[in-house]
């Protein structure tokens, strides 16, 4: 049964005698329409694919003039850690050219390696933090994070958790589950107190610190056994010899496995093309640090490599108005952090995860 047969209208039919039409629907009236529609379909399909290919080609070739010539070589560069020093210098020079053109100022991309006998460590005094979030803002300013009108264009590496003091009241005592069921829940269960891993952490009071809250900032813990490094399929994130976990932004494929693996929610994703106004851009950058990123890559705190490898403090440490943040070399017994570890009550977040963070919390 070949409903498509209309020999006069379709010369193709004669060739295809061994391949009759599949379907059982016999519509002789539609025969003429079918043969023309097959050709039209193929034509239309061909036009569609051709035009979309052309369109894609045109769009890919289209780009800003200053950036276009440089981006081609940048696109094919290898992983930074495996480059020779000469290749690294070339990569940095390319980026300097590109950033300088894009941000209309002289941008430097430093490549200072890890210094010997340095293992960076950080300590934060939870008793002192007042939740002012100046560290958050300073980090954004120093590290060229995207900032734009859309929520997806705003990235902040530091998250400040608000911990409640707790309200256990006599009124609630008998408000739990009744005795008879054998399920005992006291009336003051579910009363918030301290760090509760359930809730939202955006607070905007008129003044901080608020009466019934304490605050705990969290950013990348720079773990000694980082789960993010383990899961990266292209090894773009890795632990540098001085202890900082870094990302080669040009190598990241944006699979976000590292974001899933991090127990501290330290990593952020560039969902958009980063919005970074020229005037606000910090031109002193480090290749593995605060250089401007691109869409589709992951970024996170790197303890301000552009500062710390030059012997300065990270921006958050400098800006903290109450001196809650301390930074130093863990291998130097006289550094601030080593002294804190030796003398204060120190703890780490989620220690049971065996990530061995180098970001310590303490109270005194």
């Amino acid at each position: 049964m070949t409903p498509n047969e209309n020999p006069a209208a379709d010369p193709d039919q004669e060739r295809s005698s061994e391949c009759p039409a599949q379907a059982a629907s016999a519509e002789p009236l539609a025969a003429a329409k079918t043969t023309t529609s097959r050709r039209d379909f193929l034509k239309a399909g061909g036009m569609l694919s051709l035009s979309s290919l052309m369109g894609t080609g045109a769009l890919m070739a289209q780009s800003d003039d200053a950036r276009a010539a440089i981006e081609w070589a940048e696109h094919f560069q290898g992983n930074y850690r495996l480059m020779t020093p000469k290749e690294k210098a070339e990569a940095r020079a390319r980026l300097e050219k590109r950033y300088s053109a894009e941000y209309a100022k002289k941008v430097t991309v430093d490549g200072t390696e890890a210094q010997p006998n340095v293992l960076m460590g950080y300590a934060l005094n939870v008793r002192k933090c007042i939740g002012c979030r100046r560290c958050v803002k300073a980090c954004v300013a120093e590290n060229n994070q995207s900032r734009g009108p859309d929520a997806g264009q705003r990235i902040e590496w530091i998250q400040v958790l608000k911990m409640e003091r707790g309200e256990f009241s006599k009124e609630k005592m008998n408000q739990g589950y009744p005795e008879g069921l054998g399920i005992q829940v006291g009336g003051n269960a579910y009363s918030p107190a301290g760090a509760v891993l359930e809730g939202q952490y955006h607070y905007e009071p008129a003044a901080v610190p608020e009466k019934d809250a304490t605050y705990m900032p969290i950013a990348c813990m720079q773990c000694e056994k980082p789960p993010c490094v383990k899961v990266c399929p292209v090894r773009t994130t890795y632990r540098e010899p001085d202890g900082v976990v870094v990302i080669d932004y040009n190598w990241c494929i944006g699979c976000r496995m590292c974001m899933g693996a991090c127990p501290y929610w330290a990593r952020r994703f560039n969902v958009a093309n980063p919005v970074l106004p020229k005037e606000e851009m910090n031109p002193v950058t480090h290749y593995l640090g605060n250089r401007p990123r691109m869409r589709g890559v992951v970024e996170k705190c790197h303890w301000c490599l552009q500062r710390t490898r030059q012997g300065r403090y990270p921006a958050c440490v400098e800006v903290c108005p109450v001196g809650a943040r301390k930074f130093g070399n863990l291998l130097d017994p006289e550094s601030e952090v080593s002294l804190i570890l030796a003398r204060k009550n120190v703890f780490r977040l989620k220690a049971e995860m065996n990530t061995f963070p180098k970001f310590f919390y303490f109270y005194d």
Partner: protein
Amino acid sequence: MSFAPDYFRYILKGSMKFYAWMGFLAILSAIALYGFYLQNTEGLIVTGLTSQIHDGLYFANLVFLVGVAAGAVTIVFPAYVHHHKAMHEVTVLGEMLAISAVIMVMLFVFAHMGRPDRLWHMLPYIGIYNLPGSMLGWDVLVLTGYLLLNFVCGFYFLYVKYSGGTINKKFFMPLIYISIVWALSIHTVTAFLISTLAARPMWFHSVMPIRFIVTAFAAGPCLIILAFLTIRKNTKLWIQDEAINLLSLIITWCLGIALFLTLSEVVVELYARTEHANGLYYLMFGLHGLTKLVPWFWGSLIAMIVAFVMFLIPSVRTNYKLLPIASVLGFGGIWVEKGMGLVVPGFIPTPIGEVTEYYPTMIEIMMTIGLWALGFFILTILLKGAIGILLGEVRYGGAAAKPIDVASSGKTAAYESR
């Protein structure tokens, strides 16, 4: 080599219904291509992804489709290990499904990645391939291997049928056995991808791999049954009742085990109701007033239970008017439970406790539909070509050659005399 021209010439001819179907799929695929263009110029901000919930529809669908690809083993295994005659006739159709499903997985991977233009970074030697550390590295390896295995096995079989020769068992059978074991591995590794993330308590338990396998072996055959019934209705290939009934039996078992595993997860997590259970609680009852996924969860649970009961009753299972309904319910239920119902709640709350919700955008939804359409486009082409060769309508030498009958072919006799 006339195989390719003959094959393509056969595929390109069809009825009005065929062209309407393919045209419809092509339009949806074009939308997906447009979405892909948007994502690669504006970034993933056109989707509803955030740094809090950074795996959404695309990841959910790719995880589900790995399962569908693995489900092809429910045809290959009975056919070649148990010498199930009815399945044996249609094994190659299962392999075609596996090929399309793996291609769909790769399409969704491209949609999901932040920088698909940098995929070459994963190639060994040119880039860096992180084995044995990275589960995603293993996943890419096993998926690529599975695609190649099915491609080689399927098209070797088709080519031999086309040219009227006999299968070289020394070459073919080891590949078939490897592909059976490999099918299990693709979905186990995909389960490991999320179940090894200690930071995500909703996934970090050892029931995840077995849950993946049984839901795959329930959802895959549901789709295969629907495909087989469609093939019966629209082509000359008659797939035996025994093949379809065996698939229904497999679904019954696997759906039952899947429901049991869901039940054990619910009991274990909600008995103590620690903060680790927050993801599941969000899915089932909502958290802090955010309840978007609650109707999806209960709907999928009801769908799976109804499907299970329908499959359980033999008179319903063998009633081919009710079987499509049960299959659709089973497939849809598992798609929700394993896709959105597993991936999204894993991120709620974030590891440090922020509770947010995921709102997929229209572009994301259309792109998902479009990529499914593209996958079905490829599936239809592959199935059509395979059916043409199985029926003997595409064979070397055209009309002049002797037609080969599927049931009594020399190859079948060769297999059975092992």
